[in-house]
């Protein structure tokens, strides 16, 4: 669960990135964060994973006060979060497997456990067959799916995404959004920053709107909260034949069971 209480962020020189922002995203919720470029979306997300320290206010992430978190505890906070970026942020010189298995490795998993975790995460995004590929050998959509696999490899409680579809064409964007919805259906809280109104209107659900650093809107579109999963098989235009990211429908009850297992 993410809670912001009167949070402000000012940069030196008087630039106001966020001003008196208060909201909360409940456990298991899917929420969009929207606003024009420079509205403060990235800053807000960075505050969640302690990439920034707020100038005022309090931020709780799963009950933990992130604002006052000692520096040496930040890595442990980040291990409970998955973060996805617009520019993927993959390590080009490492394989897909090494990119995805990074967190299990630093958590002390042995090679077999790393492989299992990475395979499972890559299977979820439909890229289990590209284990040995290097990021530059992948398409943009595939790279973003690898980034998502890396973010969910340890089944984080919260997944935050900063314009994850910003570098992708509309068809691939929809595939990526569907992945986030699928991940959310398994119990992970998702906060997805985007300025793509079409995607927001298509998915519906909770929408937080920022404008010049202020939270100017907190609405639920289509009255569906928590978001009902759209028809994942609904074609959203021609798909990339090499892109196998369409999430497979789950067996009845599987999502609930896995959600219960998620820490």
């Amino acid at each position, binding site marked *: 669960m993410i809670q912001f209480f009167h949070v402000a962020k000012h940069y030196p020189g008087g630039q106001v990135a966020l001003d008196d922002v208060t909201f909360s995203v409940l456990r298991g919720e899917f929420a969009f964060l929207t606003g024009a470029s*420079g509205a403060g979306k990235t800053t807000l997300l960075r505050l969640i994973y302690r990439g920034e320290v707020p100038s005022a206010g309090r931020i709780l992430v799963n009950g933990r006060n992130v604002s006052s978190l000692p520096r040496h505890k930040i890595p442990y906070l*980040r291990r409970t979060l998955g973060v996805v970026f617009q520019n993927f942020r993959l390590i080009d010189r490492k394989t897909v497997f090494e990119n995805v298995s990074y967190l299990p490795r630093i958590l002390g998993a042995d090679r077999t456990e790393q492989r299992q975790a990475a395979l499972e995460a890559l299977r979820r995004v439909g890229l289990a067959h590209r284990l040995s590929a290097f990021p530059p050998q992948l398409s943009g959509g595939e790279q973003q799916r690898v980034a998502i696999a890396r973010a969910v490899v340890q089944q984080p409680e919260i997944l935050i995404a900063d314009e994850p579809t910003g570098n992708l064409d509309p068809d691939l964007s929809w595939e990526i959004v569907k992945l986030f919805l699928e991940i959310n259906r398994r119990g992970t809280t998702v906060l997805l920053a985007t300025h793509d109104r079409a995607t927001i209107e298509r998915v519906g659900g909770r929408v937080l709107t920022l404008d010049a650093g202020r939270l100017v809107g907190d609405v639920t579109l289509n009255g569906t909260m928590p978001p009902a999963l759209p028809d994942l098989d609904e074609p959203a235009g021609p798909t990339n034949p090499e892109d196998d990211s369409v999430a497979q429908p789950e067996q009845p009850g599987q999502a609930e069971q896995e959600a219960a297992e998620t820490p």
Partner: protein
Amino acid sequence: MTFRRALAYFFREAATGLVRSWKVSFVAVATIAVSLFVGGVFLVVGGNLSRVAERAKEDVRVVVYFDPAAEGQQAERNREMEGLARQAKGKAWVLGATLVSSDEARQRFVATFPGLAELLDRDAEALPPSVEIRVTPEADATAGYDEWIDQLHRSPGVSTVDDDREWINQLKAVVAVVRGLGLALGGILLGAAVFTIGSVIRLTTYLYEEEITIMRLVGATEFFIRGPFYAEGLIQGFLGGALAAGGLWVAFQVTAARMQGALLGALTLARPPSPEDLLLLAALGAAGGLVGGVISLRGENLGEPPVDDA
């Protein structure tokens, strides 16, 4: 992650880094190798000179030379020499005293330097009679020793007192200078090498900045982020130290062979660098590299995520 597994990861990543930026790594390794080689040369030379000084100290003599006796005063001169020898034997630090007449001194000289015997024919009194006093190695540290030497100087008939301590002390001073010079030069060069390694490592972190940012984002700790860079410094330093040790061994063998029989060679190259010396160089290199890595990254906020936009 277990410490052992973390170390394995650090060294694997460090090796990858070394290969990836082998040119700058080579410069760092070469710098530390040169500095430790120079330090090693002084270590070997200083060590050998020091051993010469120590050996000399085991057989310290004080030789008291007398004025040659005038005609008819030979008996009196002998009595003075015997009296001095007797007095000397009473001292706790004296192991023995031997009278050496001019004739005996001449015989010794001729035996030692047969080709120079004719020199003595020109001057009948070239070699004065003397009393050779052997003293304990610790004699110079004994209270009363200096006063005794002064007394010898003032004894009747004595022209010169040759105390081995003088040249031993001079040799010790040379050893101290060689060692000091070696320490200073080696220290300066090692400092430069540590700085070079530090700079190389800092450059490497710039090369890996994006990667470090990603590591941070997924929850890697400082230990995990910095470990590979420290390992890289350690490996660079160790390679430099090992190179210096190997170079020193080869240089010693070549130089010692060329200087065989020469006095300078006998003094400075009597003993090759020991395995301990060579290990010390490699260890110093490794420690220097590690220190370089640690110092260069101290206070650095490696890979703090940049602000993309507000």
